């Protein structure tokens, strides 16, 4: 059986020292081993940006696509091979700006893909511009007088879009994060895990210390019930979204694959591509 070390490759990440993404990578590798995967049974699809490079740092099948499109690519991979474990990942710009349309529709479609967002509230690879997760007033190169736009609340947004698995974590909480990724992989349907992953170079506001001060762990809230969408929404609003843990899970709604009419039990990637003559004759008979 593979261990987390089997999911390591020999590529040195080009992230800055201290970047939160290192821990996210480690948590993904641990979670993959913990759920019993072999490296070839995992496909990691990522977007563009610092965090988008993650698919190249894990010893598994990896697809580094185009900006904002990790989710449609990942859903295509999963539809082609329903036996694969598919993780999509990228930054907050990738998932909540250029790719926001795909995020909402992946949530409501509910294909069995786990989406991990490395949320640093800033654009890093382009050297420090505002992101849709930047708070109002946040000063960056593109908002020298402070952002005048409202930040997106991705967890609330996911709940209203009909998400069946919504979680949030902090990159330093390696154990909790690993457990959440495992739960996301096991969840039948789409799972969204937003991870606060501080940018040590360009974001001097949302630092490791800032998160430590401002985050509340859901397991510390007495009576929190992650099967209640209503409680999830109220708690998020009360804490301005700054909570970590499993926010909401619906285990009753079937995944997209289970609902598709006629969808093959064996992966489509193994389908016999040749039709038989009898079936072809049936196809043409429609047009006589």
């Amino acid at each position, binding site marked *: 059986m593979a261990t987390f070390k089997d999911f390591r490759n020999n590529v040195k990440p080009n992230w800055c020292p201290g970047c939160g993404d290192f821990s996210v990578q480690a948590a993904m590798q641990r979670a993959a081993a913990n759920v019993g995967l072999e490296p070839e049974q995992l496909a990691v699809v990522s977007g563009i940006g610092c965090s988008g490079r993650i698919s190249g740092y894990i010893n598994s099948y990896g697809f580094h696509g*185009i900006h904002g499109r990790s989710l*449609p*690519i990942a*859903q*295509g*991979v999963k539809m*082609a*091979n329903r036996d694969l474990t598919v993780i999509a990942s990228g930054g907050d710009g990738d998932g909540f700006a250029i790719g926001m349309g795909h995020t909402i529709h992946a949530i409501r479609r509910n294909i069995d893909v786990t989406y991990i967002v490395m949320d640093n509230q800033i654009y890093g690879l382009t050297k420090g511009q505002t992101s849709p997760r930047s708070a109002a007033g946040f000063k960056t190169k593109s908002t020298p007088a402070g952002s005048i736009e409202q930040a997106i609340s991705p967890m609330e947004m996911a709940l209203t879009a009909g998400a069946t698995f919504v979680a949030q974590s902090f990159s330093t909480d390696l154990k909790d994060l690993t457990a959440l990724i495992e739960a996301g992989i096991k969840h039948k349907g789409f799972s969204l895990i937003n991870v606060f992953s501080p940018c040590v170079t360009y974001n001097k506001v949302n630092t490791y210390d800032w998160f430590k001060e401002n985050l509340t762990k859901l397991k510390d809230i007495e009576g929190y019930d992650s099967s209640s969408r209503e409680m999830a929404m109220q708690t998020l609003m009360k804490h301005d979204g700054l909570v970590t843990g499993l926010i909401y899970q619906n285990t009753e709604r079937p995944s997209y694959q289970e609902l598709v009419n006629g969808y093959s039990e064996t992966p489509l990637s193994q*389908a016999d591509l040749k039709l038989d003559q009898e079936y072809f004759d049936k196809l043409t008979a429609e*047009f006589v």
Partner: protein
Amino acid sequence: MINQLSWKVGGQQGEGIESTGEIFAIALNRLGYYLYGYRHFSSRIKGGHTNNKIRVSTTQVRSISDDLDILVAFDQETIDVNYKELHENGVIMADAKFEPKKPEDTKATLYAVPFTEIATELGTSLMKNMVAIGATSAVLDLDIQVFEEVVNEIFGKKGQQVVEKNMEAIKSGFEYMKKQLGSEATMQLEKADGNKRLFMIGNDAIAMGALAGGCRFMAAYPITPASEIMEYLIKRLPEVGGTVIQTEDEIAAATMAIGANYGGVRALTASAGPGLSLKMEAIGLSGITETPLVIVDTQRGGPSTGLPTKQEQSDLMAMIYGTHGEIPKIVMAPSTVQEAFYDTAEAFNLAEEYQCPVIVLSDLQLSLGKQTVEPLDFSKVEIRRGKLQTGELPELEAKGYFKRYEVTEDGVSPRTIPGTKNGIHHVTGVEHEETGKPSESAANRRAQMDKRFRKISNVQFNTPVHKNAPHEEADLLIVGFNSTRGAIEEAMGRLEQDGIKVNHAHVRLIHPFPVDEMLPLVQSAKKIAVIENNATGQLANILKMNVGQHEKIEKILKYDGNPFLPHEIHSKCKELF
């Protein structure tokens, strides 16, 4: 006796104009006639003039006819818009309900037939279309029993009484019109051969070709005139375990299809101009990651929303060069419904063999024009998967990656799909080395660019040019692509009668351009006329780029939203001499 006929039915959109044409055409197709349909419609659901023009012939026809024999009108607008197409022995049959008026400058005969009144007396005005079919049969001296089978199929589900009522409507229309005609000569059609052929639109053939070619997944977004491809596959793919996802946008459609192809299933996406514009970045991704991808572009009037329900062939340059940067790509352009079937099936082979995007270019008239098609030969469809690795692979070195982008002589590298043991590699739209890891090295960049372009330096395609070249030395070579083929063929016949020696080349593989096939034809012609539905002469320019001979190449262009008519090509070509 006549051996061909042109019939048109028109009215307001949403009045059942299309189904009237459909019933008439299916019945005649089953008698063994060749049909070719053209729908004039607008980008709205109810209201607005629409018409369905159907050509009937005892021999294969692939073009709209120049003129019109019979016009069935459900409103005055239909007469006013279309009467000029009628020749002097033409017949207008118009619903008496709107008190039709015949324009002064036509010699055609107008009959006011109480379509609505007869239908209402029989139970519902909805059957006025059936009355019109009956009246048409009287003019053609056609036995109305030929419609019984079709009426049964369409209305059988609603019960025997509905079938009988509809047949009665046809009969009443027939009898009424017979009385009106009296001893007037009818337009009696020569008997057809009775052979069974298919009657379908290009989009049906594209979708069926995809299915036969092993496509098991489609991601698409609705758009005119491509949606029928998706609708067909939504119906059929579940029968073979596959499925279609209607995505949130065109970008998702293209990238999801890329993900699915990377995952190992043959996947398709199809759209028209605006959708293709949105897919461009994804096409580049497919190119640099060498992920197979089949994309259908059913051209319509552009740019932007342009003329969404009209004919145009203006995406050519965008399809060849579109996406930023440079990638290997194959662009094919079937010219008939049969070719649309075989070429789409073959596109999936080429996509896997050359590991690049393959664009199947169609145009509105080919995609939506319903026509008679000779039976399709399924035994001609092959499944070839190129260098896809299916057997067991040698163990990789510790932490090593499979050389997915190995520099090879033919440029094509071995390919593994996720799930394959010892096949792990990285895929990225960033320039990369042989295992897929990002690399900015100049030497590697040259090696990978050269490797990718080597792949398409020798594309093997069955018939890159459809040639009808009876002359060793021709006065004129006519060049076209997609749906102009039929109109060119008819114009060619007339030019030959005028004493002009004409060769015809219809380009089926647009890119890489078939220079070896085209050059001798160009060299042996005194003049070249390139026929295309666009304003700038894109194919003519491509021809000049590839074979030179600029001084001989003339552009004959039409960009008003309508397909070429044979007489237009005939007269424009004559002007060259």
